[in-house]
């Protein structure tokens, strides 16, 4: 019984970023990572943050995760201020960050061990459920180093989904993968998102990827990190990254991205 309730989808959370600023000191230089950024993300929305390196998109993701504090402004999930990491917001990184001392099942179980109210059998059942969801149920005893890059990110996805969060934060999770593996994962991620209804914030610098996955694409520009423009992607799902309609969107967004970045670099002298 508890297992069924555990596997139920919790309602996805609404995220609200208001007037957030963040500065870093790196050596003698100060980096203005985020400058008065505001963003509302609806329940179950899939939002992609796009921009060149240094535009603060990953910083914003870390702030939403609770891994970093803001210098000003506030971030909240369902109206509650975010000040520390929480189980309802899980994060996936560019490197899989899987733990090499655990096997695949052990990795997926890691977050479940920290979730109270589950028996051992239930935890294992939950972990297996998510491994099946990402298509790796046959690899639960495999070691991390034996997996391909794509499989590692699938395990990382299962690990992030296992504690049943309301928000999934993804920091360029497919950046290091080859094109073919990436395309498979786009399909899987859309299917899983449709099934599990999470609010997803997805950081990437690949415009096509953003258009393929996002309900909305938010464009950032660097120095200081600001939101420049937003695009609602009104395409039916599941989307194929190679479709012509998708290419049309990404051409437009890429042009806008170049425009903002170029415009931004000139007057900085």
């Amino acid at each position, binding site marked *: 019984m508890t297992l069924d309730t555990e596997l139920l989808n919790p309602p996805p959370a609404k995220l609200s970023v208001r007037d957030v600023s963040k500065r870093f000191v790196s050596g003698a230089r100060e980096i203005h990572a985020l400058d008065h950024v505001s963003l509302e993300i609806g329940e179950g929305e899939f939002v992609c943050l796009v921009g060149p390196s240094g535009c603060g998109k990953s910083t914003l993701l870390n702030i939403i*995760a609770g891994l970093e504090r803001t210098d000003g402004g506030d971030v909240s999930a369902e109206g509650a201020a975010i000040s520390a990491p929480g189980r309802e917001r899980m994060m996936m990184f560019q490197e899989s*960050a899987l733990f090499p*001392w655990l096997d695949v099942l052990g990795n997926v179980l890691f977050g479940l061990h*920290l979730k109270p109210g589950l028996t051992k059998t239930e935890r294992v059942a939950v972990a297996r459920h998510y491994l099946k969801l990402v298509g790796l149920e046959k690899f639960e005893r495999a*070691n991390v180093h034996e997996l391909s890059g794509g499989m590692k990110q699938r395990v990382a996805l299962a690990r992030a989904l296992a504690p049943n969060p309301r928000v999934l934060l993804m920091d360029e999770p497919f950046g290091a993968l080859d094109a073919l593996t990436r395309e498979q994962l786009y399909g899987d991620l859309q299917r899983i998102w449709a099934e599990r209804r999470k609010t997803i914030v997805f950081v990437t610098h690949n415009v096509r990827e953003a258009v393929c996955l996002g309900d909305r694409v938010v464009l950032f520009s660097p120095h200081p990190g600001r939101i420049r423009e937003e695009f609602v992607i009104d395409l039916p799902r599941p989307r194929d990254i190679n479709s012509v309609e998708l290419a049309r969107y990404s051409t437009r967004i890429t042009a806008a991205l170049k425009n903002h970045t170029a415009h931004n670099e000139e007057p900085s002298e």
Partner: protein
Amino acid sequence: MKRLIIALLFFASLLFVWEALVRAGVWSAVLLPSPAIVARYLADAALDGSLWDASLVTLRRLFAGYLTGIVLGLPLGLLTARFRFLRDTLGLVALGLQTLPSVCWVPLALLWFGQSETAMFFVVLMGTVWSMIIATENGVRNVPPIYARAALTMGSKGLHTWLRVLLPASLPFVVSGMKQGWAFAWRSLMAAEIYVTVLGGFGLGHLLHYGRELNAMEQVIGVMVVIIAIGLLADKALFSPWERFLHKRWGTAS
């Protein structure tokens, strides 16, 4: 199986060369007894029990000091990695004392503790604990920060992160620290036993020492063989399981 045969053949031919050298009469038989004479010494010493007693005394000293060194060194290493002030103080002390050959503790141990088991324990402990602290600290500081971040997002913090993430993640370093500590402890104990007669018991080092005093080369060589065998056995029994685990999980070359 093939590897075993090759190894056996290799050691058999070593014995053969040894025997051939003895027969050729290059060195006096007093300086180089034949393998058979050494084997007879070992058999006699095993039968009258002196070899077992000495091995037992030595191993007891070794394990007491070594295990204490690990039990102290591991948490101290974790704390040193965690607190900057410990790194600047205890960390430096550990680094300095680790470079000190542990035999150098023998004179001090004798003056402090006399010809006692405590002196032996102290020397072995000094051989182990500093390597263990350094290796653990080094291991923790080499853990990719992303592991701790990932664990943090899953709700791990404080002691949980230390025991379930940082400690296992630094296992490759910790195990090599344990190996180094073992090597230091073993060497320093042998040196201490050769130097110091402890009334509490005669170890392998003493047997070696008396072999020299009595000019009994077969005893000297025989005890050396036993010391080597114990070293090999310990390596296989103590560290092979860990190394196999590391190799399997991390995928490092064996």
